């Protein structure tokens, strides 16, 4: 990345670690309190989610551990709570803390999986369209326009309904995670394709591309080895936004009952499952996972903002 600022007088051989230590990226991170807090919270949440099977007091998927008599217990600071359930329980008697940890895990898997799919599709299509141009460009970009004209929710509703109708609800529940990754991934790839195409168009007229061609490199090598590394900064920046978007999309789908089933809840389906009890006073079933979702999306967006400022070549060019 063009973030190293080592000077010519510096030691001639700098290891990767030394380059990172001297980089502008680290420098600006050390000076940005919001970025530091966001990263800390984000890392804590990811670690907690990944380690959910070991951290959670109980396994919410294990029906044997669930006690229906302990349903709708409030969090610890409200009278009537039980010590075993710090954040209370939901309508089925599942421990809220455990379900949130497991739910965050599902949400993060879907969020990152969908973004990985978007990035692979979008970056490849964007590179091809930008570098090859002509008919391929026109075709891929019209495809992107068509894709963007369908909203994610609509695609998800149609695909989800079709899968449920054809294979039955049980199959849908079993394959809900890969299906959601596929749906959200397919719906949002044009974001990447457009950004990458725009930077490729700017990069491909630079002389180093001509030089690479005179070296006899193939178009594929030039695209992936020479142009792609030069377009990474915008890719990083939109990735953060897209992860947050994908998590929200998944939550919205789950809330509408088109996402994760309640037996295998994500944050979205947890919010939904508590929604019916909101009026009856059990607000924590909805509010707890809701707060976690908001916090997760917020820190990712804050990190994205910071990254955008750092990598913006107009603000800083190294």
């Amino acid at each position: 990345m063009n973030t190293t600022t080592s000077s010519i007088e510096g030691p001639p051989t700098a290891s990767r670690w030394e380059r990172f230590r001297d980089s502008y990226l680290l420098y600006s991170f050390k000076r940005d309190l919001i970025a530091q807090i966001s990263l800390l919270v984000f890392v804590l949440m990811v670690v907690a989610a990944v380690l959910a099977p070991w951290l959670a007091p109980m396994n919410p998927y294990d029906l044997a551990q669930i006690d229906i008599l302990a349903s709708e217990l409030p969090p610890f600071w409200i009278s009537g709570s039980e010590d075993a359930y710090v954040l209370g329980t939901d309508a089925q008697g599942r421990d809220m803390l455990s379900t949130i940890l497991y739910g965050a895990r599902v949400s993060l898997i879907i969020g990152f999986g969908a973004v990985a799919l978007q990035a692979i599709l979008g970056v490849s299509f964007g590179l091809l369209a930008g570098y090859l141009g002509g008919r391929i460009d026109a075709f891929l970009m019209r495809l992107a326009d068509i894709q963007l004209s369908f909203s994610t929710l609509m695609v998800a509703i149609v695909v989800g309904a079709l899968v449920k109708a054809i294979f039955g609800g049980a199959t849908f529940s079993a394959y809900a995670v890969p299906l959601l990754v596929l749906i959200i991934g397919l719906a949002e790839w044009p974001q990447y394709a457009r950004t990458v195409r725009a930077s490729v168009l700017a990069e491909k007229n630079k002389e180093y591309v001509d030089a690479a061609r005179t070296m006899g490199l193939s178009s594929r090598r030039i695209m992936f080895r020479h142009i792609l590394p030069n377009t990474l900064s915008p890719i990083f920046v939109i990735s953060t936004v897209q992860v947050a978007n994908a998590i929200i999309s998944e939550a919205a789908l789950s809330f509408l009952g088109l996402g994760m089933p309640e037996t295998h809840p994500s944050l979205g389906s947890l919010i939904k499952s508590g929604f019916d009890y909101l009026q009856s006073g059990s607000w924590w079933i909805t509010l707890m996972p809701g707060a976690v979702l908001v916090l997760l999306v917020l820190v990712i967006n804050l990190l994205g903002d910071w990254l955008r400022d750092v990598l913006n070549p107009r603000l800083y060019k190294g």
Partner: protein
Amino acid sequence: MSLLEVNYLDVRFALRRGEVQALRDVCFSLDRGERLGIVGESGAGKSVAAFSLLNLISKPGYIAGGSIRFDGQELTGLSDRALRRIRGHRISMIFQDPMMTLNPVLTIGEQMIECLKAHRRIARREARAIALRKLEQVQIPSPEARLDQYPHELSGGMRQRVIIAIALLLDPDIIVADEPTTALDVTIQAEIMALLLELCEKHNVGLILITHDLGVVSQVTQRMLVMYAGRVIEQGPTREIINDPQHPYTQGLMNALPQMATPGERLNQIPGSMPSLDNLPSGCAFHPRCAFTRHPDGSERPSCRCQVPEFVASGNCQVACHMVAEMIERERIPAEETTR
């Protein structure tokens, strides 16, 4: 037969307002180890000629006719795959601006290894060793360290050395250098030129040097072409052209050199400027600026305005000029009459 033979090369650009002929009837040849200079004003078609050698002119340009034979193989119409085997491997190129031609996000070593791997099945470690050896050849200080540096960590002169090292990486037969020193400052220019010359001589590499600088051409090259408005107007041994230019344009170029001017007076210049390629004058493209469009007796020579001049031999040189042709004709006829 020469290593490289270019015959009647015709390159056009299909623009929205119509086709523009950037090169017409360009012919030249290059022997193994020979050094050829191509000079001319900006826009004369020098760089287009260099790019079309490897069929690298990008759209909307294309080679409309003529032939480029390299080592017995016709390059025009060759598939991209086959051309890639020649690019960088048998014929390599050096560009004007060393700031722009290196990829800013890859290390020097990475870029060199990349180039080697594109042409040979080679282990990374071995490629790195070759890269290091080439960097030593171009006399870069601490070559080992440079391999892991990024282009922005090197100075302009060092970058151009790296580019020369990349050009030499696969031991090519020909290096095409498109104004290799224009972007450098004067002291570095001489160093880089001397290095390029030395390496070409040592490895018996042919050099096509494209430049504005007649001084460099006269020092480095054995033969030269003078181009004007997409056409070669004079070619021959460098020494003869520099000492005794025949074409009025070449004479004008020589006269425009600062050392040809009388101290204290204005520098000489050729009046007017080069015509744009989509609106060339009829006949000889140079005639509107030429001081010799009239016969010695003062009457107009109509062929300058109406007829494209053919090459005529003058000594070891070839010149495309009606005036020169007429002079040679006039000398030849009396000579024939006296022998009779």
